[in-house]
């Protein structure tokens, strides 16, 4: 059918004027929106108060539903495990045998490590975590990989702090409200993490791809530094992320860069730990000149 022409300009001056003003407001709004985008580019923390308030207001909605989802998820994986019980049992037994052997090896290494550390007096004193809180949700349709954490400025969380779980690195605090904060997952396209490979110690960069995986790039050129199954841990270079947090495991190698999946699956995380920004220890002071 032919549409009725609702927006036909009549002869009434008043209607013409109000239509015109509506368009002017719309165009001005678009220009303001584009200007706000420029602000967001050069000052990502801009409008923090407004955004933080919105975050605080929406967090309880997400938080309430999260426990239900978690129950359903764990029930699903429980059923799956039951179905695959037989083959899984065999595989697990094999793995256990291997793991026991490795454990003994690891204990020996740890012992050695502690002895060496004591020798150089580099006793690692991990700083106390700032907050331990639940991850309650994430932006489901946006292109940034944000997740919501149920702790905010009241708990001492500040933008920039690294977030980890027991399995590995989760990401970094992006902005905070009073009771909730938004974190960029390490798979977000804006995250660059200095890391190294456990096997060889090769320094690499882990860069988020935005689709759940990470790009690993070697910092030294030449050779084939990656193997499928390699684990990358943070190196602590440049501060921010404390060293030796597991980041990702390599799943596909393509010459000098590799695709890796994060070890801490954000969908299954119960708790995340917010840590203070890591500052590398200062280089040792030069020995004092001997007194004459």
């Amino acid at each position, binding site marked *: 059918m032919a549409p009725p022409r609702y927006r036909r300009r009549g002869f009434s001056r008043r209607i013409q004027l109000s239509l015109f003003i509506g368009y002017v407001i719309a165009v001005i709004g678009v220009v303001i929106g584009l200007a706000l985008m420029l602000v967001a580019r050069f000052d990502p923390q801009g409008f923090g108060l407004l955004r933080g308030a919105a975050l605080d207001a929406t967090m309880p909605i997400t938080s309430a539903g999260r426990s239900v*989802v978690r129950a359903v998820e764990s029930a699903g994986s429980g059923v799956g495990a039951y179905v695959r019980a037989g083959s899984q049992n065999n595989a697990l037994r094999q793995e256990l045998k291997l793991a026991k052997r490795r454990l003994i090896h690891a204990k020996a290494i740890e012992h050695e490590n502690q002895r060496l550390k004591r020798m150089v007096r580099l006793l690692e004193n991990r700083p106390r975590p700032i907050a331990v809180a639940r991850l309650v949700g994430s932006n489901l*349709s946006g292109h940034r990989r944000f997740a919501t954490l149920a702790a905010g400025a009241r708990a001492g969380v500040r933008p920039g702090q690294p977030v980890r779980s027991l399995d590995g690195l989760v990401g970094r605090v992006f902005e905070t409200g009073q009771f909730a904060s938004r974190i960029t997952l390490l798979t977000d396209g804006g995250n660059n993490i200095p890391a190294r490979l456990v096997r060889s110690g090769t320094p690499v960069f882990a860069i988020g791809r935005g689709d759940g995986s990470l790009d690993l790039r070697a910092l030294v050129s030449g050779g084939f530094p990656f193997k499928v199954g390699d684990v990358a841990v943070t190196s602590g270079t440049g501060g921010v992320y404390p060293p030796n947090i597991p980041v990702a495991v390599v799943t596909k190698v393509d010459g000098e860069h590799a695709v890796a999946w994060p070890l801490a699956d954000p969908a299954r995380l119960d708790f995340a730990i917010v840590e203070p920004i890591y500052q590398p220890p200062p280089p040792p002071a030069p020995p004092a000149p001997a007194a004459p």
Partner: protein
Amino acid sequence: MNGAIQRDTSERRFVARARSVPALSTIAGSATMLLPIIAVSPLLPPFGLLMLLGWRLLRPELWAAWVALPLGLADDLIGGQPIGTSMALWTVTLLAIDLVDNRLVWRDYWTDWLVAAVAILFCLGGSWIFARFTGGGGTVLSLAYQTGIAIFCFPAVARLCVVLDRWRLAR
């Protein structure tokens, strides 16, 4: 006298419902982003945008183009995109649909879907570019995937708008 007052309050309630349902349902569409699932890639279509398009194509006289400004602001705040993303993109979309409305003589189900598909492509592509511009975005593949889902979700959302429209205008 009593009857007249009663009729008056019910009249006022009817008008309030008829006016507020479209905007509130659009904001509710944006709020689907708050579902308590943690996703590693964008997997839900932008229901806020779909509701906006559904209402605009169903009732052209309902909204002036500037209505997308507050609705887009709400979408930005709920989703945590840089403020201005949806504000700018949604308003441009409504302005463009106004232009198309003046040109098109015939409109049916398929033209509506086509217009909505182009609008979805524009808005998702735009927000992807803005996300890259302000820090980091996803891959083209995840964008294509989400766009496809959103386009195929549109008829269902348009249906929902029709149901809501009947309810809001029922006496």
